[in-house]
């Protein structure tokens, strides 16, 4: 028996040693990760594809292209028109300037004439004076008598001259005033024109933005429709049903409320459509707040 026990313990030790050696060999020679296998890149985005008729797509593409082309043409036409208008305005402005110049010229001419007249008047007066002197000299006798008359005459003349002068001054002031007013008018008109053009430009930009937004929103709605359709259970329902759903979302596309606005007539269909909307949450929604605000509440016709 003792011999047996000895034999068994010896065998046990031998087997332990064997396992130990084997373990060490395995650990050192079986390094799995000595050559890391290049990991296949995880697919970044799994494409959620829906089968689409190619022809239809082409048709749609063509339609969009046509639309765009047409739009471009329209834009070009509009631009041309605007340019034309601008040219016209310029022409008008030039004309006005020309007119103004003419007026100035005329005014100058008038002034010259006035001066001439004054000179002539002075001369005349001088002559008259000389004549009077002569007369005085000649008619010393007559002087006393004439003096009164002369004085009167002189007075009248003086008064007249004064009056004339006053009138002239008045006229001048009026002219000046008129000119200033004209200038102001012109400026105001110009400014108004500029404003009008600017306003038109801004409006145009806004319209374009609106159009862009509409397109974007259409795209998002298409995506939403697709994602809802992918969740929709068509089993046991007739084809061709459709209902109008109102969806309220919060930022990030989470659906807060979905309600049937116009029923399809089939209660099951309505119920399932609603469920599909909820289970498709979060729906694809724009990150841009401006765009999102426009589609916070959307209403669309669901027809799978």
């Amino acid at each position: 028996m003792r011999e047996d026990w000895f034999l068994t313990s010896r065998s046990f030790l031998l087997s332990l040693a064997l396992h130990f050696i084997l373990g060490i060999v395995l650990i050192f020679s079986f390094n799995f990760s000595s050559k890391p296998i290049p990991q296949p890149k995880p697919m970044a985005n799994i494409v959620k594809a829906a089968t689409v008729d190619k022809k239809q797509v082409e048709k749609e593409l063509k339609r969009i292209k046509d639309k765009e082309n047409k739009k471009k043409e329209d834009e070009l036409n509009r631009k041309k028109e605007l340019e034309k208008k601008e040219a016209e305005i310029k022409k008008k402005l030039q004309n006005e300037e020309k007119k103004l110049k003419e007026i100035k010229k005329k005014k100058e001419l008038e002034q010259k004439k006035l001066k001439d007249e004054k000179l002539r008047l002075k001369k005349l007066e001088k002559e008259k004076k000389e004549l009077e002197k002569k007369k005085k000299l000649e008619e010393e006798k007559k002087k006393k008598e004439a003096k009164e008359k002369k004085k009167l005459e002189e007075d009248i003349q003086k008064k007249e001259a004064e009056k004339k002068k006053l009138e002239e001054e008045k006229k001048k002031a009026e002219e000046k005033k008129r000119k200033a007013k004209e200038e102001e008018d012109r400026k105001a008109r110009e400014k108004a024109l500029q404003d009008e053009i600017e306003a038109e430009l801004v409006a145009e930009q806004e319209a374009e933005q609106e159009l862009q937004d509409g397109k974007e929103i259409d795209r998002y709605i298409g995506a939403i429709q697709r994602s809802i359709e992918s969740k929709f259970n068509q089993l046991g329902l007739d084809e061709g049903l459709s209902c109008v759903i109102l969806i309220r979302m919060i930022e990030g596309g989470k659906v807060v409320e979905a309600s049937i606005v116009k029923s399809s007539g089939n209660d099951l269909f309505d119920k399932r459509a609603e469920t599909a909307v909820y289970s498709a949450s979060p729906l694809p929604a724009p990150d841009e707040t401006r765009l999102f605000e426009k589609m916070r509440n959307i209403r669309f016709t669901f027809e799978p």
Partner: protein
Amino acid sequence: MTTDHSIIDLVLNASLLVQLVMLILVAASIVSWTMIINKRVILKRAKNDSEHFEDEFWSAEDLSPLYTKISARHHQPSGMEKIFEAGFKEFARLNKQENIDADAVLDGSQRSMRIAMNREMDHLETNLSFLATVGSTSPYVGLFGTVWGIMNSFQALGTVQQATIAMVAPGISEALVATAMGLFAAIPAVIAYNRYSYDVERLINRYDNFMEEFSSILHRHAHS
């Protein structure tokens, strides 16, 4: 040495149950190897002893000196020696008695020889059944560990939206270590079991033959 996925890492990162399974398998492997070595020594010794004894037996002129020689040995007789000893002892004892039938003497010695052989058989066959058990069950135990590990790794996968092979692969590899261990324990055990049961059968055949031959000799003695 990068131990990203070395065997040690795989074992240490496994879940508790899988580790337990691995421990059981390692223990089973160690014990079965102990028995393999043990049995091999025992069987070889028995074979050598029987050959040696057969030589001795057939070269002996008379059986009585052989018996005394064997009885005088201080260590316990084994195998064929034991059978011979038992048979001859019974034969001698019965032969000493007066008025006894020769057939009855032969019967008695044969019976005692059969008993001795059965005892030898029992001794030789001990622990062989353990090898058979290890050989047949340890693959299943290992498989159980693997299935459990894979279950866990798939459960972890359930919460992820995008499943890639890179996410399950480490768990599966970890779990598969258990199966590898099960196979590692089972294969030597099965081979050893088959081999040793064959060896034991041959030895027993040999004992049987020897018993028959010895009986015929005794028969001759009894009826002479």
